[in-house]
């Protein structure tokens, strides 16, 4: 039987606020334990939560960027469960009327666009951290993370392969960073994925029983966990078994998922509206204000690069993979108009290659857009060849001669020979020395032409302007 995999994702994006969602404690990462947990985070008796405007504003920003409805009023609910890193005995979350409802995200799969619908995105607080290392048979609790604002973004079960799930997660990851609501740092847990996976016979409509895989903190693990889980479910079904609805954990070291809890012993969270928090009203004027401050979205920029600069869909996607990359590209072309393709090639080739090699983000690129533009100008005005430009680029990257393009070209003697009379003289010499190839070419052997070009380039140590050499050589041979 042919099986179809059905995947929905829940992503927890940590919002980039300074303070917590319901208290004035700091959210900075990496502080010593419990130094950023105040009485509200500790749930001492008598404290009351007060909602952080910055967290709501970020949720609105997200909602607008995915074309969702912003609910007003929106309400907060208590999700009840017991765990020592949740001091209140409940997590403040949203159940009915989340801030963000609906919307969609477009992903690119093999060059085609696919729409992934969103169910909702709601605000909630994070729990603390339990450390199970040996404290004489006790567990240690660090509540610094308790109360950190999260936006839980829930998709519809619209994905059909692990590759689609990864494409969705990556697009979402790029978007939350683009609009500045989340730093996207997966090692620090700022962007965590849970995957709901089920399988069904291809061609049928009814969804199979799903399992939820928790806490996938890298795109690679997301892909591997879904692949493993789908295989596991298919094997069970093909052996005549039934899938049990449950929560599973992915073990990266063994590349398998295992049961965390089954539905029978799953918590009944007993959601109810939190009496400590009043309904949240989001006036239209606030939404308009957030909308007007939104940056141009990646999708819009991608389309603009294609229509305005005639870049391919692939180039436009790569350049808009992060706002920093897109901004770098735009700063470069501002100084080198009408050379968009040349700029794109260099940013996606040399720049991105070197950054990858050294594990750097583009924001830490040692070559500024204006330095890159100066270098590329020397290619487009014929001063140096593309090949020589790579040598100059390397010197600039290493900080030689204060990254001064012209100084490096002069110091390394990379200037192209672009003087017509000089090239003509060279061509004459080469033609005189290669009479046989000249005859071959005139008798229709096209290959002889390339060989002659090669001879000329060799004679100049690659410094002759190849475009001019081609023109002059052709003129001489045919003239």
């Amino acid at each position, binding site marked *: 039987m042919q099986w179809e995999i059905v995947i929905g994702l829940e992503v927890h994006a940590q919002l980039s606020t300074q*303070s917590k969602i319901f208290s004035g*404690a700091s959210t900075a990462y990496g502080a010593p334990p419990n130094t950023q*947990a105040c009485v509200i985070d500790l749930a001492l008796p008598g404290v009351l939560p007060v909602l952080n405007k910055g967290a709501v504003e970020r949720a609105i920003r997200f909602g607008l960027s995915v074309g969702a409805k912003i609910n007003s009023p929106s*309400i907060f609910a208590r999700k009840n469960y017991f765990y020592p890193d949740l001091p209140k005995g409940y997590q403040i979350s949203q159940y009915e009327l989340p801030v963000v409802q609906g919307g969609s995200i477009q992903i690119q799969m093999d060059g085609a666009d696919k729409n992934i619908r969103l169910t909702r995105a709601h605000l909630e607080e994070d729990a603390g951290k339990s450390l199970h290392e040996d404290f004489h048979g006790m567990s240690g609790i660090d509540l610094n993370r308790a109360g950190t604002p999260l936006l839980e973004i829930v998709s519809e079960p619209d994905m059909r392969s692990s590759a689609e799930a990864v494409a969705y997660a990556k697009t979402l990851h790029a978007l939350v960073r683009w609009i500045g609501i989340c730093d996207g740092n997966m090692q620090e847990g700022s962007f965590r994925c849970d995957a709901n996976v089920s399988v069904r016979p291809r061609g049928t409509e009814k969804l199979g029983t799903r399992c939820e895989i928790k806490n996938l903190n890298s795109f690679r693990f997301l892909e591997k966990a879904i692949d493993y889980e789908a295989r596991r479910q298919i094997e069970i079904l093909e052996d005549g078994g039934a899938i049990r609805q449950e929560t599973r954990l992915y073990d990266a070291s063994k590349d398998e998922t295992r049961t965390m809890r089954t539905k029978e012993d799953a918590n009944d969270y007993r959601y109810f509206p939190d009496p400590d928090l009043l309904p949240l009203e989001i006036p239209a004027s606030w939404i308009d204000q957030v909308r007007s401050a939104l940056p141009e979205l990646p999708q819009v920029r991608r389309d603009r690069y294609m229509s305005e600069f005639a870049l391919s869909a692939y180039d436009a996607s790569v350049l808009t993979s992060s706002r920093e990359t897109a901004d770098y590209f735009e700063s470069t072309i501002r100084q080198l108009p009408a050379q968009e393709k040349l700029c794109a090639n260099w940013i996606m080739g040399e720049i991105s290659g070197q950054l990858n090699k050294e594990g750097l983000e583009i924001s830490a690129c040692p070559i500024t857009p204006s330095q890159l533009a100066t270098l590329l100008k020397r290619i487009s005005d014929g001063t140096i060849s593309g090949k020589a430009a790579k040598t100059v680029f390397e010197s600039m990257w290493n900080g030689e001669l204060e990254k001064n393009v012209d100084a490096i070209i002069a110091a390394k003697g990379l200037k192209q020979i672009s003087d017509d009379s000089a090239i003509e003289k060279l061509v004459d010499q080469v033609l005189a020395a290669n009479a046989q190839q000249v005859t071959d070419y005139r008798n229709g052997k096209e290959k002889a032409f390339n060989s002659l070009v090669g001879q000329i380039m060799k004679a100049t140590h690659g410094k002759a302007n190849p475009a001019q050499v081609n023109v002059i050589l052709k003129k001489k041979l045919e003239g």
Partner: protein
Amino acid sequence: MTLSVSDVKRIADLAYIEISDNEAKEALGQLSGIFDLIETMQAVDTSTVEPMSHAQNVLQRLRDDEVTETDQHELYQSIAPQVEADLYLVPQVIE
């Protein structure tokens, strides 16, 4: 809605409350009384009334995103039963 003793035991379990069989029977009677009361209230036609999520008809006040709390963990931890390496210690929990 009819409640059974096993429902009461399940609710107690979720709420981490230890409850004896006698207490469960007693709670069953009390809870059933509450459900009867709700049933009586269901007789009122509320189809044109928008549900409220809060008893007070006022809106949530927001605070600016600013860090206003300072580190007072030593003070807070002075009343904790057990502390080590700045961590609150609790009976071991493993999922």
